[in-house]
């Protein structure tokens, strides 16, 4: 298959621009990232600098990869990370726009690579439980119902890729933050720090420069792990509850 790529190229500290590349004789079974690899091999041979993009596991579980492809975060396929999107999902001969996540909180480092430290700051603020480390706790020492465990597991699927921010018209990080708050708020282990967690994570999110949630639902549509919008309502509930009880 052949494609015309319109790729965002940006050197550190400089303004970026869209550059056009040909991707020729690509296997329909190549993943999107493999297609970029093939283009890069040619660019290197021709003495050009390779297109920088983030990737790691290439099996859709690590959260490293991700670009906005033709206007969709991780491409148009539902519930799929960019590494799991294959070229057969595109029309032969089509033009494909490849851009980095766009957010003030995610500055472009180079080409398609963005700095997602803002997510780390949100996690550092409260996305954990404080426990005594040591020998492994007894299995089943803390009873968790199947329903609760399932609900917590659904949000724990979040891989922190940042597609929610990229897809949101406001570049809001509410889906990510709500997933992380929900995951711990649902489980008994998360209860002792529940109030401080909501307070601190929301504020860390605000400070990082993300936009606000105006309930468009784009994040839910783009999320490769299909995290639900309901979690944002839970975040709001948790934050209101914590604010009323004045625990910070």
């Amino acid at each position, binding site marked *: 298959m052949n494609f015309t790529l319109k790729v965002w190229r940006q050197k550190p500290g400089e303004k970026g621009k869209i550059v056009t590349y040909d991707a020729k004789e690509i296997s329909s079974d190549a993943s999107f990232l493999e297609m970029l690899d093939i283009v890069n091999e040619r660019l290197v041979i021709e003495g050009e600098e390779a297109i920088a993009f983030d990737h790691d596991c290439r099996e859709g579980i690590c959260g490293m990869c991700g670009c*906005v492809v033709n206007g969709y975060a991780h491409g148009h396929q539902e519930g799929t990370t960019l590494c799991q999107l294959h070229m057969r999902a595109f029309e032969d001969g089509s033009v494909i*726009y490849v851009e980095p996540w*766009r957010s003030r909180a995610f500055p472009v480092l180079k080409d398609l690579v963005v700095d997602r430290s803002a997510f780390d700051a949100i996690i550092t603020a409260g996305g954990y439980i404080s426990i005594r480390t040591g020998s492994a706790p007894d299995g089943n020492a803390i009873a968790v119902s199947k329903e609760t465990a399932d609900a917590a597991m659904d949000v724990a699927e979040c891989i922190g890729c940042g597609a929610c921010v990229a897809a949101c018209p406001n570049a809001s990080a509410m889906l990510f933050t709500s997933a992380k708050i929900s995951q711990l708020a649902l489980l008994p282990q998360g209860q002792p720090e529940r109030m401080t967690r909501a307070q601190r994570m929301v504020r*860390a999110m*605000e400070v990082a420069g993300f936009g606000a949630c105006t309930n468009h639902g*784009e994040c839910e549509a783009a999320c490769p792990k299909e995290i639900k919008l309901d979690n944002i*309502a839970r975040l*709001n509930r948790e934050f209101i509850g914590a*604010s009323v009880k004045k625990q910070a």
Partner: protein
Amino acid sequence: MANNMTFLETSVGKKVLMAATGFIIFGFVVVHILGNLQLFLGPEALNQYAAFLQASGPIKWTVRIVLAASVLAHIVSAVMVTLQNWRARPQKYAVKRYQETTYAARTMWLGGPIIGLFVVYHLLHFTTGHCHPVKAGFIPDSNGVINVYNNVIFGFQDTVASGVYIFTMVLIGLHLYHGLWSMMQSVGLNHPKYNHWRKAFAVLFALLIATAGISLPVSVLLGLVTPV
């Protein structure tokens, strides 16, 4: 890592305020439009209702103050959230496609200010009479008394004025279609069992209020209600 941002300094807090004040304004709009639908019951009903409202002194002023404060808080929080959202993406996408969002949701930032301007016009039109299109001030009826029933009809006989109302009612419908569902999300009211009712509630009230609002000028323009 905790910082000392107050509740209202966070966007989550501002959205809660926007939802709460929006709900108050929505409640007023429902009562206001139900009251004015008495136009269809004839001059006596509407004029008596208007006299009853005017006679309610302190209650009237309490409602006005609460409403004005709500509108102000609604606007301030909306402006601040919108500016935060515009700042959050300095570099736009060359190509961006949306999958879930609606026209209503995407135009809240524009619809809001237009509705705000309409409220100013609406007050100058029917409350103070400064913008009454027939002539400055209200026209007395055959008994020399200024009456609300006639004011409404003369006001809507002007096609431009009626057009402004009809257009704004459509915008209010769009605003409510997104806002009524959105406010529940913002204050954390959700439950998997009842979530589908939230959108249904928003659609129903958006349609009811827009239709009721449009029915008044349209009926006057069609000559279905006439002055006394």
